[in-house]
């Protein structure tokens, strides 16, 4: 049992994160063409709305919530020290978790019931959706059954996660957790693990640069102005299109 625990909460997280980093870097550099999520809105747009919107906004809030408890545990505990604020936080998180669940179910229904969407579904899409479904169901279960998650995450899990970051794992607290929460933790690292192999990779290329770039883009093969000037060394100007 201890060996299994050690594997799941020490070895597996390291493997998952390493595979994530190396895999994403490799895919981005060598297979740049594939770094996106295969949108199927063009084949079916109406049902998609009722799945993708609740799912993605749910993901955003839930992800930022987990990240906050990980990065700012003291602030999270301080916030939760007043019961009303704790309840507001937990209820909000649960609502967005439910929104994720509803969205995901709608997306899965759409994917399996629509012939056109089935035509662009890969086995990895199914694996990913099932894994996500398990993860979201477990998350909602934990939120209902093991209160109050935001507080004990900050108190128990954040030290564990930081100990992994510091390369000196402290696992006593994690080993003692109920199996539901353990599954949720393993599921989280499994999701990180399959990012480079699935459509999840699209979150890496969220188009934030669009906010700052000018609308129009003109590219020249070569800086002709410089090339025509005999005083510039020819190797100084690199073409911007490769």
């Amino acid at each position, binding site marked *: 049992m201890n060996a299994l625990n050690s594997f799941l909460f020490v070895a597996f997280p390291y493997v998952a994160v390493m595979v994530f980093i190396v895999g994403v870097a490799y895919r981005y550099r060598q297979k740049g063409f594939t770094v996106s999520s295969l949108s199927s809105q063009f084949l079916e747009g109406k049902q998609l709305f009722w799945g993708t919107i609740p799912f993605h906004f749910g993901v955003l809030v839930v992800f930022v919530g987990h990240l906050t408890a990980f990065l700012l545990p003291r602030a999270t505990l301080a916030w939760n020290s007043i019961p009303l604020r704790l309840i507001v936080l937990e209820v909000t998180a649960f609502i967005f978790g439910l929104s994720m669940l509803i969205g995901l179910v709608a997306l899965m229904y759409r994917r399996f019931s629509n*012939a056109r969407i089935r035509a662009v579904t890969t086995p990895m899409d199914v694996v990913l959706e099932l894994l996500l479904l398990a993860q979201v169901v477990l998350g909602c279960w934990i939120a209902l059954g093991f209160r109050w998650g935001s507080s004990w995450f900050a108190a128990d899990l954040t030290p564990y996660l930081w100990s992994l970051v510091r390369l000196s794992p402290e696992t006593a607290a994690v080993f003692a957790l109920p199996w539901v929460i353990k599954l949720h933790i393993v599921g989280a690292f499994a999701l990180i693990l399959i990012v480079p192999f699935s459509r999840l990779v699209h979150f890496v290329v969220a188009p934030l640069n669009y906010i700052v770039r000018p609308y*129009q883009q003109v590219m*020249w093969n070569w800086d002709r102005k410089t090339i025509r000037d005999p005083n510039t060394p020819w190797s100084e100007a690199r073409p911007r299109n490769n």
Partner: protein
Amino acid sequence: MDVRSQISMVFHLDKCIGCHTCSIACKNIWTDRKGAEYMWWNNVETKPGTGYPGKWENQDIYQGGWQKNGKGIELKGAGKPKSLTNIFHNPNMPVIDDYYEPFTYKYLDLIESPPGDDQPTARPISMITGEPMDIKMGPNWDDDLSGSPDYARNDPNLANLTPAEREAMFQLERMAFFYLPRICNHCLNPACVASCPSGAIYKRGEDGIVLINQSVCRGWRMCVTACPYKKTYYNWSTGKSEKCILCFPRIESGQAPACMHSCVGRIRYLGVMLYDADGIEAVASADDADVVDRQMDMILDPFDPEVIASAKANGLADSTIAAAQASPAYKFVKVWDLALPLHPEYRTLPMLFYVPPLLPVVASVTEVDNEEQAKKMNPVGKVWPDSWLYDTTTKELFGTIDDARFPLKYMANLFSAGDTTQVSDRLKKLMAVRLHRRQITVGDLAESTVKEALADTGLTPQTADDIYYLTSLAKFDDRFVIPAAHREQAIEMMEFTGDVRGSTGFGFENDTAKRGA
């Protein structure tokens, strides 16, 4: 002055016979792939008609192009705030049913069906799902269907025509249509480039071709919404957007684009135009009434020494400037003022131009004394041994234009943001050239009439002959004038030569070449 060059195409619509050869040439080269079956980078539409995708000109539905926003402009259905908030679901995105579901037929069933009581048939099947399907739409579904209630009468360009004008257009005896070949307009203010969250779309500085970098495209699909001409397409199989590339690999090797090269009616002209890139934003923000004139003003005279000097300072090659001086596109668009951009009100400053169709002219068939008629003609004129004359002359000089079977307003909605004078000026010139040539070859018009027509439109007989030559007699080399892509620069387009100095060849992007075991 920021002088740039643009490879620009002119379509002479009077010459288009609607044969779709251009579409097929393009399809065979570029879009005969999985996920691209439904794409027609080049398509030919019957006007009046709803086109492809259906009613693409109705921006209340498709939300494409730019719109005025106070003094400036903004993207109608995309742009920074809209693209980012709609990143998970784009509400203005057309779906495949707006185009058509690609289909093929189960031809093998004709051969491989077991013996039975019935004749085997080749059933249509979807190229997406492989399931049998009912074909409801195709890429040219409304071909030649002028006057039809479902198609022609739903043409968005009829919006501001009075009911009486519409009825007159679709009277059975007066019914007419013309063809509108469309490819990507390689705009100066492209909405697709502006809408791309990934920054994958760009305009090439040397020739103005707008391209999508397939490795940078992340499939956010905002360009599909933003292009008002619906000329960026989403490949549902690769998850990337694709568009007309103006056959740049052919152009770089000195060949004409496939659509142009295959054109049966020889309606297409390709040439370089120099333009002042400083003015793009101001011109795109001009009032509807001025936008055509302002765009024409941006196009620079390639013979002007000042323009030549700025062009050289901007790095344009001498061969590019020479090509601009010999450009058939420049002649049609600027020298003769015969061509107009398609839907300038979308404010993308499209750089493909259309010579509006004069046809069909109103004509009558009259009975004449053949001998008398033959006497009137000069030796070039041909006389058929019958006594019928297809007579296109009218008492009033440009009567056929104001009285055309297409209301000028309809043409103006297509080509000049509703300004009928822009269209009628050009049609009158075409008519004057026609009268001038009729006088020369047939000789049955009074010389004074022809002189009056030419004077009215500001043409000299010499210019009219030049227009006639480029319209009717021009050889391939007159219609296709682009600068050479310099070999050394063609290499630099692919690789930075400094990186591979001392090695042989350029290698492979992903893997080394496999040789033997």
